């Protein structure tokens, strides 16, 4: 009896452990689970978190991610429609939408990743090959803000107009990838270009073009500088001439007017008796014109010496 009790306890204990260990399982917020019996799915997938029960040993629980999952593509070299070779690097978000279907078609995530490689890379290649590079790079037809310090005319390529643009092309890739993966229990949520780059040869050419463009701009600046400088110097010459000649003109006018006025004044005064004026002026001139070095010959017949002569003569 005692032995029996022991055995029962042990058996019950072992059974309880098996049930606890293999029958009960916790599904957390990150997980979803399907249950199979010898590989055959049983019941609905469990997508809500909580404690669940399955038949121990017979049933098997398969855990899958419920969260958004990453997919990061390899860099691919693809020619665009306008025959430029570029590297395209895409990434995608996806999730396991239908764990049962997912389990049946793909079993696990690594196979899913490899299928996604095929699907998304393919869709990306198609999309890239069907569009010009600028369509892949630009996403809107916004106008470029101009740098006021740079001469606009020298910038080779402004922003070209696009028809679809990056976002729409990414959307196309997404739709294509989503439709191809929907029968795998996968939902592709988003596909995006992470990087688009020139391959090395093209990049060299682009650099050369950029250098040429900058050189042109630099030359324009230099030439503008010389031009402006010459213009300013010309202005200087002109202004100088203008200023001096203007001053000369004004001065001459003033002098002329003053001379005329003075002449008027003199004339008005002296006209009262021109003869007397001449006499006075002559007298003045004498006193100014004669100096120490002059030789003055005076006749006794002159007014001054008259008396001298008379005195002697009589």
């Amino acid at each position: 009896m005692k032995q029996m009790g022991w055995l029962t306890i042990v058996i019950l204990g072992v059974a309880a452990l098996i049930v606890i260990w293999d029958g009960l399982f916790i599904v957390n917020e990150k997980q979803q689970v399907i249950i199979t019996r010898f590989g055959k799915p049983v019941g609905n997938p469990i997508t809500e978190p909580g404690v669940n029960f399955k038949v121990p040993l017979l049933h098997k629980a398969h855990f899958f991610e419920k969260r958004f999952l990453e997919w990061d593509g390899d860099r691919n070299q693809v020619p665009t429609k306008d025959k430029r070779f570029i590297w395209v690097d895409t990434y995608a978000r996806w999730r396991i939408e239908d764990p049962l279907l997912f389990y049946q078609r793909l079993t696990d995530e690594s196979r899913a990743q490899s299928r996604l490689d095929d699907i998304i890379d393919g869709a990306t290649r198609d999309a890239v090959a069907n569009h010009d590079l600028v369509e892949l790079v630009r996403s809107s037809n916004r106008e470029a803000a101009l740098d006021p310090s740079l001469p606009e005319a020298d910038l080779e390529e402004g922003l070209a107009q696009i028809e679809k643009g990056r976002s729409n092309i990414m959307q196309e890739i997404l739709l294509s990838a989503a439709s191809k993966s929907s029968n795998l229990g996968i939902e592709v949520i988003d596909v995006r270009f992470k990087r688009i780059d020139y391959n090395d040869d093209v990049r060299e050419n682009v650099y050369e073009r950029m250098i040429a463009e900058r050189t042109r701009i630099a030359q324009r600046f230099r030439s503008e500088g010389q031009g402006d400088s010459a213009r300013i110097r010309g202005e200087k010459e002109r202004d100088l001439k203008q200023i001096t000649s203007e001053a000369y003109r004004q001065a001459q006018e003033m002098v002329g007017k003053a001379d005329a006025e003075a002449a008027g004044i003199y004339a008005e005064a002296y006209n009262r008796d021109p003869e007397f004026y001449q006499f006075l002026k002559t007298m003045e001139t004498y006193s100014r014109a004669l100096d120490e070095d002059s030789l003055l010959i005076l006749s006794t017949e002159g007014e001054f010496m008259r008396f001298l002569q008379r005195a002697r003569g009589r």
Partner: protein
Amino acid sequence: MEPQDYIDLKKIKWEGHLDRRKISIAVLALLAIIIMFSSVFQVGTESVGVVLRLGKYHRTLGPGLHLKWPLRLETYDIVPAERQLKEEFGFRTEEAGIRTRYAPQKYLTESLMLTGDLNVASVEWSVQYRISDPFLYLFKVRNIGETFRAMAEAVMREIVGDRTVNEVLTVGRNELSVAAQLKLQELCDQYLTGIRVDQVIMQDITPPDPVKPSFNEVNQAQQEKEKLINEARADYNLAVPRARGEAEQTIRRAEGYAIDRINRARGEAERFKSVFTEYRRAPDVTRRRIYLETLGEVLPKVGRKLFVDKETGNLVPLLQLGKEGQNQ
């Protein structure tokens, strides 16, 4: 916290069957210790703890020491929700500090990107973000760090791809970070990442290395242009104001001349008028007086004087006055 405990427990139980007493005590003690240790956890200052009860989200806890149900009945995740996190693109901080050191190598695959005019620019930037919703952060997206980096790169390239290289390098610089932040936040919300983007910081935005010298050349040329213009202006300023002053001088001088001339004329005219008035009273006498006065004034000044008489005809000078005469 992983369920290794369970396996130990099992083994010990099996062995405990053999020697019940002693071992059952040991087992109980061990069990008690395990339960105790698995019931306590700590949340750091900058973090929050998210607790799942039986796999289901139950509560979020702040910093401090917390209790939970033992073993796997409750599990928890620590999320640094209060810390500002940072992702760097195109460069790496090697050692942050007062003088931050950056990794010497370039991350060109990250930084080189196509601009809308199909040129290439090298853009380095960093994103500061915070985990605003730990629940979403933990339970909606796996491997969020890489996801976030990929998102940030895609967003930046999309924005740069819609601008000219000039915009990216100069005028549009600030606008880039605003646009990137908005777009990245939008994407974060769309992916349910639970991340709030605080700031997108543009670091170095430069032309690619091989192109740099030519960009510098443009700057140089720009400065040269300024210099030439300034020199010419200086020249202008050196000459023109002076010429203006000189012109003014010429005019003033002419004015002076005019005033002088007219005043003199007036003065002389007045003088004449006065003399003339007197003269008219006694013309003959005045005339003679003036004549003689003049001679009186003139004669002493003249060095040599010759007096000629009618009678002597044109003969030798009779008298020589003045210095010369005296010396003879």
